[in-house]
């Protein structure tokens, strides 16, 4: 209130100021007019005072002045008195002045009724110095208007599209569209002004009213009505559909979970778990940004679980099982793998989660973590694996030497390693890259063992031979170096993050695959050549690549075996091998030369033989002409009418197994049909003309495929299926022969009304809810319960529809 009053006061002040400002110029402008007015006033007053005489005198004066020819200026003028003088003593100032925007909106600043945005706009207007753009021409502006209006109308009209489409597709349309629903109607609507008259009726109504049963409207009791008000049928339907959908989704989900649970594959679960973890980490990262508090909580949880894992001896390979496996590990790859997996699990579980929240802490703990993770691996390696392997100890001091050893091994070792792998677990085709890597190293170790035992001098001479080998194929050695460096880096950075390590190992694995294939090529080509040309290539084995080291000879049988295995499983690699093999070895050239020779031979023959000779040779075996004649004879025979024997044994005479009907009877009942008209091709010895084509039938046959059908089969199938009630059940016939448009006799069909649009929308909503549910719950009862009264309603209005 106080504020308002203050405003008023201020307004009043403003007004006052305005008026004071206005007074002075007004006087100046309107001096002449005022004089005139005062004159007129004088005249009037004098009239009043002097009466009749004066008036006469005035008339005389006027007449005289009129004679002078000068008219009074004021007579023809039209003036607006409000401009000069207002009843509120407020005069319009600056009448002839140029009006500024500030004059018009000066008071706007001070009034509270004007919204702030408007004030702002006005200010902007005042500030802007640019001239306003010239308005568009009338034609153009109208055109724009029309375009906009049309777009609007078009979108409005497009709303009908779904209904129109639906009606076009509908099997049957019943007009008028908005027919009254069939069913019980309230009594008042049927009979108006009906009253209980007989005593029985009165009694009944008394009872009904006493029990609060509906009298006028026989459909609903008050409770039901209340429930109706609580939830309409449409809403209930929608709600039910929603619930159904939710239930369906739940059941899907449950089924899926069950199914997944049943899967026995460890790899699958491993992958799944990994994916879950990844997902979780991602979410966690997001959470760190979005909701730090809960993220911290989560982090604590993770930390807790990590602590627990670290405390417990689980996955540490220290249990009974692990010990037994450790014993087995020397001989059994599977056991070793299992142990590795255990350690892997441990590693992942004790992995510290890196996030922005605990970055500071992390740096402190980094050294600790390194110490934590690395020793385990090292320990493990010492425990389980060969202690001779320096890589597995985590030392890489003797890099050079080790690498060289690996080179020799690499060329040969991969074969057996692979065989083992594939023999062992054929199901596990997809392995993780880490596993590959590990196995590779294992195999290398194995081979090194073999080398050490078999050829001690070779190990002594290590350096020289390996250097040579490296010189021979520098590419390979380079690659190996790369791998090694990667591997060392892997070892160093293992504490950084699991994901990084994984990706790196993956890379390393990929890198490994290329030399691996190269190796295989040599082996494969041999075999393939054997397969390709066994008979004409006795020197297939002799053509073995010279690069092949002597070590492989011992393992040749093994490699061949692997080759076969490979071939059985993977066709693609074989192809690769074939293409590359031709590059390396010249052997495949032999068959090609043979081919050339063959071609030359055939060409020679071609020269010798002419076309007809060739044909003769080609059809030497069959006699076409006689075949044709036979064919024709056969067709002619088929066209001849057969003699039909209609004799019934036992009729009119004795019958039995050994008795034949009499000759007389047989002759009597043998029906000879008239000979057919002569064949059209009887004078054409080299032509067969079909007699089957009947012109009288072709009159009734469809000559070309009618429009809506896409192929003959479709059309024929529609024609083939009968419609009548001889072939179909009553219901089917009714359904088939349903007319497309049904109209009611004597009913006016109104144009489509707007309400149809709303109806359609509702139906759409309903359908979208209920669609996924209907097939999965064909007969399920309505289960959901709405509290209290609406349950009654359910039974009445929804339950029975099922």
């Amino acid at each position, binding site marked *: 209130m106080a504020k308002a009053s203050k405003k008023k006061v201020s307004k009043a002040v403003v007004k006052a100021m305005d008026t004071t400002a206005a007074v002075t110029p007004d006087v100046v402008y309107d001096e002449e007019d005022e004089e005139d007015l005062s004159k007129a006033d004088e005249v009037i007053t004098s009239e009043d005072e002097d009466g009749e005489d004066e008036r006469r005198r005035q008339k005389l004066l006027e007449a005289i002045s009129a004679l002078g020819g000068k008219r009074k200026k004021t007579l023809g003028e039209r003036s607006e008195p409000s401009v000069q003088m207002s009843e509120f003593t407020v005069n319009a100032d600056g009448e002839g002045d140029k009006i500024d925007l500030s004059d018009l909106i000066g008071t706007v600043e001070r009034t509270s009724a004007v919204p702030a945005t408007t004030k702002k706009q006005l200010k902007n207007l005042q500030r802007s110095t640019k001239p306003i753009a010239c308005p568009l021409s009338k034609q153009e502006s*109208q*055109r724009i*208007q*029309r*375009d906009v*209006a*049309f777009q*609007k*109308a*078009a979108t*409005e*009209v*497009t709303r*009908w599209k779904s209904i*129109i489409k639906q*009606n076009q597709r509908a099997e049957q*349309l019943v*007009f008028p569209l908005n027919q009254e629903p069939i069913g019980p109607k309230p009594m008042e609507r049927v009979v108006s002004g009906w009253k209980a008259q007989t005593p029985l009726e009165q009694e009944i109504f008394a009872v009904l009213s006493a029990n609060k049963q509906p009298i006028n409207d026989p459909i609903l009791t008050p409770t039901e009505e209340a429930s109706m008000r609580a939830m309409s049928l449409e809403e209930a339907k929608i709600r039910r559909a929603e619930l159904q959908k939710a239930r369906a989704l739940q059941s899907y989900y449950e089924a899926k979970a069950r199914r997944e649970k049943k899967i026995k594959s460890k790899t699958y679960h491993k992958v799944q778990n990994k994916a879950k973890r990844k997902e979780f980490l991602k979410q966690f990262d997001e959470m760190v940004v979005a909701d730090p508090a809960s993220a911290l909580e989560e982090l604590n949880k993770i930390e807790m679980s990590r602590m627990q894992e670290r405390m417990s001896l689980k996955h540490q390979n220290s249990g009974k099982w692990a010990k037994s496996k450790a014993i087995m590990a020397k001989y059994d790859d599977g056991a070793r793998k299992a142990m590795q997996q255990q350690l892997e699990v441990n590693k992942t579980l004790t992995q510290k989660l890196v996030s922005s929240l605990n970055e500071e802490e992390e740096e402190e703990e980094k050294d600790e973590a390194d110490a934590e993770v690395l020793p385990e691996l090292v320990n493990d390696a010492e425990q389980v694996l060969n202690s001779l392997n320096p890589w597995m100890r985590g030392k890489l001091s003797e890099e050079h030497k080790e690498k060289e050893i690996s080179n020799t091994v690499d060329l040969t070792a991969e074969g057996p390693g692979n065989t083992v792998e594939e023999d062992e677990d054929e199901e596990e085709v997809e392995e993780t890259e880490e596993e590959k890597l590990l196995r590779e190293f294992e195999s290398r170790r194995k081979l090194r063992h073999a080398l050490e035992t078999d050829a001690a001098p070779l190990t002594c001479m290590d350096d020289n031979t390996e250097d040579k080998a490296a010189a021979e194929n520098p590419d390979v050695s380079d690659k190996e170096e790369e791998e090694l460096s990667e591997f060392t880096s892997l070892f160093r950075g293992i504490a950084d993050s699991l994901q990084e390590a994984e990706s790196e190992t993956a890379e390393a694995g990929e890198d490994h695959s290329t030399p691996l294939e190269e190796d295989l090529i040599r082996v494969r080509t041999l075999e393939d050549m054997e397969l390709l040309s066994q008979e004409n290539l006795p020197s297939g084995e002799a053509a073995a690549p010279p690069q092949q080291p002597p070590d492989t000879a011992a393992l040749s049988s093994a490699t061949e075996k692997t080759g076969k295995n490979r071939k059985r499983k993977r066709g693609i690699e074989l192809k690769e091998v074939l293409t590359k093999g031709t590059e390396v070895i010249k052997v495949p050239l032999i068959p090609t030369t043979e081919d050339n020779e063959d071609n030359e031979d055939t060409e020679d023959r071609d020269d010798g033989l002419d076309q007809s000779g060739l044909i003769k040779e080609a059809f030497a075996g069959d006699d076409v002409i006689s075949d044709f004649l036979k064919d024709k004879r056969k067709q002619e025979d088929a066209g001849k009418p057969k003699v039909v024997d209609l004799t019934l044994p036992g009729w009119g005479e004795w019958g039995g197994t050994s008795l034949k009907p009499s000759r007389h009877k047989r002759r009597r009942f043998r029906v000879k049909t008239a000979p057919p008209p002569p064949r059209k091709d009887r004078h054409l010895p080299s032509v067969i003309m079909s007699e089957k084509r009947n012109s009288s039938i072709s*009159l*009734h*046959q*469809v*000559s070309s495929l*009618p429009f809506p059908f896409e192929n003959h089969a479709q*059309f024929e199938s*529609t*024609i*083939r299926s*009968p*419609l*009548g*009630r*001889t*072939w*179909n*059940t009553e219901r089917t*016939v*009714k359904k*088939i*022969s*349903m*007319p497309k*448009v049904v*109209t*009611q*006799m*004597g*009913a*006016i*069909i*109104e*144009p*489509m*009304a707007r309400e149809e649009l709303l109806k359609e929308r509702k139906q759409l909503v309903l359908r979208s809810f209920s669609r996924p549910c209907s097939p999965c719950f064909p007969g399920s009862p309505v289960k959901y319960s709405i509290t209290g009264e609406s349950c009654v309603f359910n039974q009445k209005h929804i339950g029975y529809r099922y």
Partner: protein
Amino acid sequence: MCNTRGPAMAEVKVLSRNPDDYVRETKLDIQRVPRNYDPTLHPFEVSREYTRALNATKLERLFAKPFVTSLDGHRDGVNCMAKHTKTLSTLLSGSCDGEVKVWNLTKRECVRTLQAHEGFVRGMVVRFCGSSFFTVGDDKTIKQWKMEAPGYGEEEEPLNTILGKSVFTGLDHHQKDAVFATCGQQVDIWDEQRTSPIRSFTWGVDSFSAVRFNPVETELLASCASDRSVVLYDMRESTPLKKVIMTMRSNTLCWNPMEAYYFTCCNEDYNLYTYDMRFLDKPITVHMDHVSAALDVDYSPTGKEFVSASFDKTIRIFAKDGGHSREVYHTKRMQHVICIKWSLDNKYILSGSDEMNIRLWKANAAEKLGVMSPREREAANYNQTLKEKFQHHPQVRRVARHRHLPKSLYHQTKELRVMKEARRRKEMNVRKHSKPESVPLLTEKEKHVVTVVK
């Protein structure tokens, strides 16, 4: 013989049937007919049904007697007609001498005659409530009349008369509101309560021949103008929406009452064009068959078909998406058909023609008009499906498609066909002997649209 031996029970076999299987409970029940649907017992199904279909088709042509009655009484050509919106049996017609007649169709008689205008009655429309109707005439007036006849001794007087500045040529009423539209020099929207239009649309043309409200999207309307264009309007906007200019002038148009964005206009070039109002650059369908200008068109209330009246003295019925007519009606005495209406129960067609008669036709020529028993209806439905199934067979098609045409009409049709073929051939030759792609290959739909003006 056996019984004499002793009391041992003899086994007697008797035919026994359960009466429940074959006896009706009441005589109102339908007879139980055992059926065996084994296809081997009912061979030759295709040929049997084919015969049935052929017979049904023949019978249909036999029963096709579309002409119901002729209403005579006008003393000049019938220029316009209006359907009563609430009563099926009432029809209004206006003639070229300014006379309006109200007809009772069941009794086939005129129930009221009034001299509405001097000169032609150009347009006529019944208010949506059915209580009054409007007429416009050559005397530049719009008159509103009561539907009921004046009582004894009362004079026949219009409820309202609006004097316009120019001649009105067409009239239509809004579906729900008290608003109507007229056309003449411009398209005007009138409030029933006012004597001046609430809105006037002009767009460079000074002569409109017809205006129609959209019955579904009730605020939209369309008009045919003399500059060969069809113009769309929205009642709520101050400007027209769009127009399409065709090669020749459209006489009238009609909106599809069930499909909001389709309308059909009948053109001077003998064709009718169905447009989607959203895409005016090309008609959806070109309906051809008339051999002279099409003068009027009206949709069936189901929106599935429409009927057109033509200067060639015929009425043709088209499926809404059919390029050619499914039916042609003509009589010897019927002259140029000026106006046509499809009754609101989808059963009849009314035509007003130059020779002062109004004719009542059946919409389905072979349909039985009376009440049908269920068996009859089922048989009819079955026959209909059979006809549809075998419609592509040459014999059936020949019978079903055959119509008798007056000689002049027949020859005119043939002539037109020849002309069309000649035109096609010439165009082909031109294309053959000119630079590739300099003569564009236009479809029939594209040929007739000159331009779309935004």
